């Protein structure tokens, strides 16, 4: 089996919930050794899902946790005990990166401020992720993806005109933060390779979302315009939206951006009379009359399934695709053929299908996929093998509830 890109990198990982773990999972699935520092006293929120695998709840049975922590190891430590912090420090000494997404001040309270980390390892890379970032007057704010959508302005531009702001689905803020976080960590590691210098990375979830809505930002900074909500509509494209298809709650997305695509669309749907109407004669008129146009497009799409519409229009060179629910997503024939769905074997819940990462390259094609860890699954490895403690010492620390 060929080498994974990030082999040899060790990450001491204090992150929990979604944003932090997604960043470290992008790295663990690429071969970095990511060791989660967990605690039975305060297990990760997402380990405590209401239902677990096969309808049985349990700290190791959460789909959400298992999906965001693939290929990581887990050890347990009580960081409220001095000996717990001491052991964490021993692990940090032999790690390249420390990651966390606690509220501001928590790491300091554990005695693990960046200054302390540098004393342990001068070239340490410390990654810290939070809603507001560590610097600034509101650095005490906490939150989830939805707070980042709120503070960045993203929620205000999402939804229907005349309707309330809504949140972006799939906890966008968490995963866009994690994605950028992985990049920051890799860039810092690259810099360290060149110069020997580590550093502190301050990741604000609000800013990670904001950089992905630059159109709205620049319309304000250049033109003083405050953008509102516009559902599925576009600045100039029409037809552009989701159209109803055969079946219950089935929709297809269609986006036509030029004269060529419009003509191809008309041919593909059999050139009904309405396509020859003056109202739709050019791009501007189609956009100005899109309410009427949408009803007419919908009168055609309603007789087909959303996948049928995709096939008919794509064959004609027109961008179209179904708005898929989660069942359709995991059964999509293209994603399946690309092996986007992979299998992991978890110590407690066994063989489960999981999503791969959204990139492929040659040397990755024969790799094994490792599942997420049970709570404390790697205590013997971390404390025995990595930190050199004897079996007796470990047993004593378990009894003292330091390893817990």
């Amino acid at each position, binding site marked *: 089996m060929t080498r994974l890109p990030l082999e040899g990198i060790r990450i001491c990982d204090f992150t929990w919930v979604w944003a932090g773990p997604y960043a470290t999972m992008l790295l663990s699935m690429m071969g970095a050794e990511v060791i989660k520092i967990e605690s039975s006293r305060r297990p990760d929120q997402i380990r405590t899902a209401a239902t677990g695998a096969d309808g049985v709840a349990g700290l190791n049975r959460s789909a959400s946790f298992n999906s965001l922590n693939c290929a990581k190891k887990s050890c347990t430590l009580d960081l409220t005990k001095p000996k717990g912090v001491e052991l964490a420090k021993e692990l940090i000494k032999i790690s390249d990166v420390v990651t966390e997404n606690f509220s501001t001040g928590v790491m300091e309270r554990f005695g693990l401020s960046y200054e302390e980390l540098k004393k342990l390892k001068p070239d340490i890379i410390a990654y810290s992720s939070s809603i507001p970032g560590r610097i600034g007057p509101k650095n005490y*704010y906490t939150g989830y993806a939805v707070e980042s959508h709120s*503070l960045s302005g993203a929620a205000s531009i999402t939804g229907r005109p005349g309707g309330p702001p*809504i949140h972006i689905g799939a906890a966008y803020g968490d995963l866009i933060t994690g994605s950028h976080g992985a990049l920051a960590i890799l860039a810092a590691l690259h810099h360290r390779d060149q110069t020997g210098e580590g550093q502190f*990375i301050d990741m604000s979830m609000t*800013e990670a979302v904001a950089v992905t809505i630059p159109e709205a930002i620049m319309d304000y900074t250049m033109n003083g315009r405050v*953008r509102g909500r516009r559902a599925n509509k576009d600045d100039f494209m029409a037809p552009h939206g989701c159209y109803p298809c055969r079946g219950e709650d089935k929709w297809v997305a269609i*986006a036509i951006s030029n004269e060529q695509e419009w003509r191809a669309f008309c041919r593909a749907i059999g050139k009904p009379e309405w396509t020859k109407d003056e109202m739709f004669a050019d791009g501007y008129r189609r956009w100005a009359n899109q309410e009427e146009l949408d009803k007419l497009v919908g009168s055609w799409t309603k007789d087909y399934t959303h996948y049928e519409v995709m096939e008919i229009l794509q064959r004609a060179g027109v961008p179209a695709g179904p708005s898929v629910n989660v069942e359709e997503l*995991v059964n999509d024939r293209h994603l399946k053929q690309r092996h986007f769905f992979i299998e992991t074997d978890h110590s407690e819940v066994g063989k489960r299908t999981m999503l791969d990462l959204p990139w492929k390259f040659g040397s990755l094609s024969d790799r094994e996929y490792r599942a997420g860890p049970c709570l404390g699954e790697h205590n013997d490895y971390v404390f025995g093998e990595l930190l050199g403690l004897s079996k007796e010492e470990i047993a004593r620390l378990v009894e003292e509830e330091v390893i817990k």
Partner: protein
Amino acid sequence: MEKGALSNLKVVELGHLIAGPYCAKLLADLGAEVIKVEEPGVGDEARRREPFLHDEAHPEKSGFFLNLNTNKLGVTLNLKSKTGKEIFLKLLKEADILVENNPPSVMEKWGLQYESLKEINPRLIMTSITPFGQSGPYRDYKATELISFHMGGIGFSTPGVVDNAAEEPPLRAGGQLAGFMAGIAGAVATMCAVFYRKATGLGEHVDVSTQEAVSSFMRSVATEYLYTKQLYGRARGSRPYMGFGGILPCKDGYVNLSPSQDHHWDGLVQLMGNPEWTKDERFKDRDSRRQHGEEIRAHLEEWTKGQNKVELAEAAQRLGFPGAPIYTMDEALNAEHLLARGFLAEIDHPEAGKIRYPGAPFKMLETPWRVIRSAPLLGQHNEEVYCRRLGYSKEKLVKLRESGVI
């Protein structure tokens, strides 16, 4: 002067619109040298997209283009001409990374598949970002932002629960998020390939699919479905229990409250001034509150309607649970905290002048985000790149321009 974290990397970008250019921008903003290659006379399609400075459509005044192409050198090159292609290959010979987001069939037409480029430079990392990847039944399908967002599953989950599914279609989010999701995936993947090459000396063809980049964000939801095979509809009442937090109306707009953990309930009750209704049996513990989430929400809304969003969020935060005002764009960009962090960066551009742009996606203390140059004018660095680096004479440059190669 401080160097960027990636200052020893050389990138060539053959990108347009968002995915390729954003991937290359991330590398450029981190200090890599990026040469952006555009078609002579035409340039990146992004130059023709809104928002424009003062609403004036001009290829050097598109805010959309200007933001996506900071810190890059810009050259023009006609890849359909034999000489143009030769020059491109010369650029690639010296490069570490090629970032491109052209349809696979177009790269084939230009003779720029990875297999050929590998011959010129075995260490080359070629990152290709396309709507559906380099393989599979949808490989040559066309997609825009709208298509990618919906085919990746986030569209269907964006309006969340709706009252009338037939009247309320699934929605894209504001902005063009799919392109950015693909771009950041490309940047992370590219850096993984850089690390692989450090160990092995070998380049790679990195294949990024926008559909997969978007689907990845559905990771947790998809895995829950795979674990339970439980599929919920969008209609209200189709899920067993509802949270009661979320977006709530205020006197002056909206607020988001997330009292999602058990211990947040006490803070919320205190925030509302201990009203009688919270003492009801139905709301006594976490499970019963989950069952009666809709009722709690109705009470909560009644109360928030009389509050100011910024004050309410602040009070929630002080009481230990998450809250945030739903800022409009002007409010977001004038917020005390964002301004204190210096998130917006003023950049001067020869045609567009001084404009404030979104700045760093994260703060790296030793290698901070910096702007060395604004987005390039079309062909701005032809002389610098072709003459000073590749050694063409100025006379040759004139000939290349006249024959439409550059």
